[in-house]
C-alpha cells in the first residue's frame, strides 16, 4: 500500500517539476505505447506504431507520444508501464494480450491515467478499457479467396497459439474456403510464437512440402511470404499489408488499422469525455481492412470477395451463420442462426470438417 503512495508522490513530483528540463515536455497531452515487438516488424507492432503516428498527425502539438518496444510480457511490462507514467504519460495503450494483468495492476495505482489494453478482457478499474478487432471477418474473405484459388485443395495455415482469437480465425477461413470448394482441406502448423521468422519460415516450408498451394498465417513476420514466393504459390499479408510481396505471392492481406480508434480515444481523453469501453470492431469501422486484391486473383473472385466485405461491413452477413456443426458433429448454430459474441470470445473448438485437433 505504501508503495502506491510513493509512486503517486513520484508522479506528482514529476508533474510538479514544471520548470525542469524534462517537464517542459509535459504540457502537451502525453500518450504512451507499449509494444511487444520491434516497430520495424512490418506486422503487428508496426501497425500499432502507424496508429501512434496517426495520433501525432491528427493532434499535432497538442499531443506528445512516447513508446517502449520489445517489452516482454509479465513482470517487465508492469515496470515499463509504471516508468511510462512516471515519465509523464496521461494515457497508455498496451498493445499485447500478455500485458493484461500488468495494465490492470498499474491502472489501480494511477487512477488519473487512462489505460487502453488491446485484445484483453480484464477491466478491473474504471480507467481501463479494452479493444480488439474482429479479425475473423477478414479471415472469412481470405478463406473465400483461398478456397477459390487452390488447385491442390490443401490450404496451409501457420498458427501462433491455441487461443480463441486464433481458433476463430482458422474456423472462419476454413468455413469460407469450404463454402466455395467442398474438397478443401486445411493443414495447420502451430509455431507457439507471434514473431519468429525462422520458425514461421520452416512451418511454411513444411506446409508447402505437404502439398499446400495457399499459405495463410496468423503470425507477424514476412518469412512465410518469402517461402511462398520461392515455391511459386500464394499467400496473404498479415496484420500489415506486406505489399513488398505483391502482386504475388501476396494476393491480398488482412490489415489491422488502429488509427481511427486511437485518434477517437485520445480525443475523448483530452476532452474529458473518455469512458470505460469494451470495443470489438471489424470492417464496419475500418479497424479490419482487406489490403488491395492483386491481379493474380481472378476477377470474378475479386468481385465476390468485395461483395462479402460489403455484406459483413454493412451488417447483412455474419461470418458465423448456421448451420454450423462443431468438429465432433454436434450442432452449434442452427440454420440462419448467428454466433453470439460470448461464444466467439471464448471459442475453443474447431468446426466440422477440420481434421486435426487443437493442441493441448
Amino acid at each position: 500500500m505504501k508503495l502506491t503512495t510513493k509512486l503517486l508522490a513520484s508522479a506528482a513530483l514529476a508533474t510538479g517539476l514544471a520548470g525542469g528540463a524534462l517537464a517542459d515536455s509535459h504540457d502537451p497531452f502525453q500518450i504512451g505505447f507499449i509494444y511487444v515487438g520491434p516497430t520495424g516488424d512490418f506486422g503487428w507492432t508496426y501497425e500499432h506504431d502507424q496508429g501512434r503516428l496517426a495520433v501525432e498527425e491528427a493532434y499535432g502539438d497538442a499531443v506528445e507520444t512516447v513508446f517502449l518496444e520489445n517489452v516482454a510480457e509479465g513482470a517487465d511490462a508492469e515496470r515499463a508501464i509504471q516508468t511510462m507514467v512516471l515519465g509523464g504519460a496521461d494515457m497508455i495503450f498496451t498493445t499485447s494480450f500478455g500485458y493484461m494483468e500488468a495494465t490492470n495492476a498499474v491502472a489501480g495505482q494511477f487512477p488519473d491515467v487512462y489505460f487502453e489494453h488491446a485484445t484483453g478482457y480484464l477491466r478491473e478499474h474504471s480507467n481501463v478499457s479494452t479493444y480488439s478487432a474482429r479479425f475473423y471477418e477478414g479471415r472469412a474473405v481470405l478463406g473465400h479467396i483461398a478456397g477459390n484459388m487452390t488447385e491442390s485443395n490443401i490450404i496451409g495455415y501457420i498458427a501462433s497459439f491455441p487461443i480463441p482469437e486464433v481458433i476463430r480465425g482458422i474456423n472462419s477461413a476454413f468455413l469460407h474456403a469450404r463454402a466455395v470448394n467442398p474438397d478443401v482441406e486445411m493443414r495447420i502448423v502451430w509455431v507457439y510464437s507471434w514473431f519468429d521468422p525462422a520458425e514461421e519460415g520452416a512451418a511454411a516450408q513444411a506446409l508447402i512440402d505437404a502439398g499446400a498451394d495457399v499459405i495463410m498465417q496468423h503470425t507477424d513476420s514476412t518469412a512465410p511470404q518469402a517461402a511462398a514466393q520461392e515455391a511459386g504459390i500464394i499467400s496473404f499479408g498479415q496484420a500489415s499489408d506486406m505489399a513488398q510481396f505483391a502482386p504475388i505471392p501476396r494476393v491480398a492481406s488482412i490489415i489491422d488499422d488502429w488509427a481511427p480508434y486511437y485518434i477517437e480515444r485520445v480525443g475523448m481523453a483530452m476532452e474529458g469525455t473518455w469512458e470505460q469501453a469494451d470495443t470489438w470492431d471489424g470492417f464496419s469501422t475500418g479497424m479490419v481492412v482487406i489490403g488491395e486484391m492483386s491481379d493474380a486473383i481472378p476477377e470474378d473472385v475479386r468481385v465476390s470477395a468485395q461483395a462479402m466485405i460489403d455484406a459483413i461491413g454493412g451488417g447483412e452477413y455474419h461470418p458465423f451463420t448456421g448451420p454450423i456443426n462443431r468438429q465432433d458433429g454436434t450442432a452449434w448454430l442452427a440454420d440462419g442462426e448467428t454466433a453470439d459474441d460470448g461464444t466467439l470470445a471464448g471459442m475453443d473448438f474447431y468446426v466440422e470438417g477440420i481434421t486435426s485437433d487443437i493442441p493441448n
Partner: protein
Amino acid sequence: MIRLEKRPTPSRAWALSTPIIAVILTMIAGGLMFAALGKDPFEVIRVIFWDPLFSERFAAFSRPQLLVKAGPLILIAIGLSLGFRAGIWNIGAEGQYIIGALCGAAFGLSFYPSESPLIFPGMVIAGLLGGTLWAMIPALLKIKANTNEILVSLLLVYVAEAILASAATSWLRNPDGQGFPGSRNLSRHAGTENPIPLEGLDVLGGFFDLAHVGIFAAMAAVIAAYVLFQKHLLGYQIKLAGQAPRAAKFSGVSPALMVVLCLGVSGALAGVAGLFEVSGPAGQITIDFNVGYGFTAIIVAFLGRLHPVGILFAGLLMALTYIGGELAQLLLQVPGPAIQAFQGMLLFFLLALDVLSNYRVRFGRGGAA
C-alpha cells in the same frame, strides 16, 4: 606485428581490472553509437547509469526495481558459477527456471483456493526439486552415456518451453479465464504470493522496498557461495576439478559426483528463481513466462568472473542497464535495439579483454617459437 603469448598463470591484476575497463570501453563505444544515432552520448549514459539510482524523479521508483530485476540473475548465476568453475557447462538454466516455476505453481494451485501459510514454503521446495530434476537429465546422461551436457541442457530448454506452452493453454489454465491462456494469478492470492518482507519500510535507501523472498535468497546464495569457495573443501575440489581434472581425480574427487552436484545445485537455484518469479513479479504462468533470465545469467556469471561478489555486482549492473535503458528509450527516444546492442557490447569487451588476463601482448617479431 602483434603476437599473443600465453601467460604461465593468468594475471590477477588484469583479471580484476578487465570488468571495469570493459564497462568503460562499452561506455565509449556505446557513446559513439548513440552519437551516431543523433543523441547526446553523455546524456544517454547518464540516464542509463545515473538516473535510475539518483535522479530525484525516478530514483524512488527505480531503486526497488533494480533488485527485483537483478535477483533472479544473481541467483541463477551463482548456481552456474559452481559448474563453470568445475568445467561443467550448464547452458540450460532457462529450462530449469521454467520447470521450477511450473512445479512450484502447480503445487500452489493444486491447493487453490486455500490460503494456508504452509503452501508457499511447499512451493519453494517444489521449485527447488523441479529445477534439480530437470538438471539431472543432462547430468545422468553425461555420467551414464557420456553425452555432452552443453547440448543436452540447451536442447532441454526447448522441451521446457513446449511444456510451458501446454501448461499455459491447458493443464494450468485459469478455469475462469474465458478460454484465454495463462494460469490463475499467484501473486495476488494469499497463500501462493511471494511475500515482500520490507514493503514500505523504506530502509536502506529504498532498495529493498519491493524485495521479495527471492531477493533475500539470492543474497544468501552469494554468501553461501563465498563461504564455499573460500573456506570449504568442496569449493577447493570444484576449483581443482576445473583446473586440473586428473589431479582432482587422484585426490579422490569423483567426477560423477561433481557432475551431479554442480548441475543439481545450478538446477535447483534456477528452478527456485523461476518459482520466486512466477509467484511474485510475473504473477502467473503464461506462454511467454520465461524472458531469458537463464541465458542472461550466463553473461552475469562471466561478467562477475565466476566470483560470488563479482556476480552480485554484475547482476546489479546488468539490471541497471535494463532499467536505465528503458528510461533512455522513454526520455530520449533511444531505439530499443540500440540498448540491446549496448548490452551486447559489454559482453563483447569483457570477453575480448579476457584474452589479456591469459595472454601477454607482444609487439614486433618474437624469438624462436
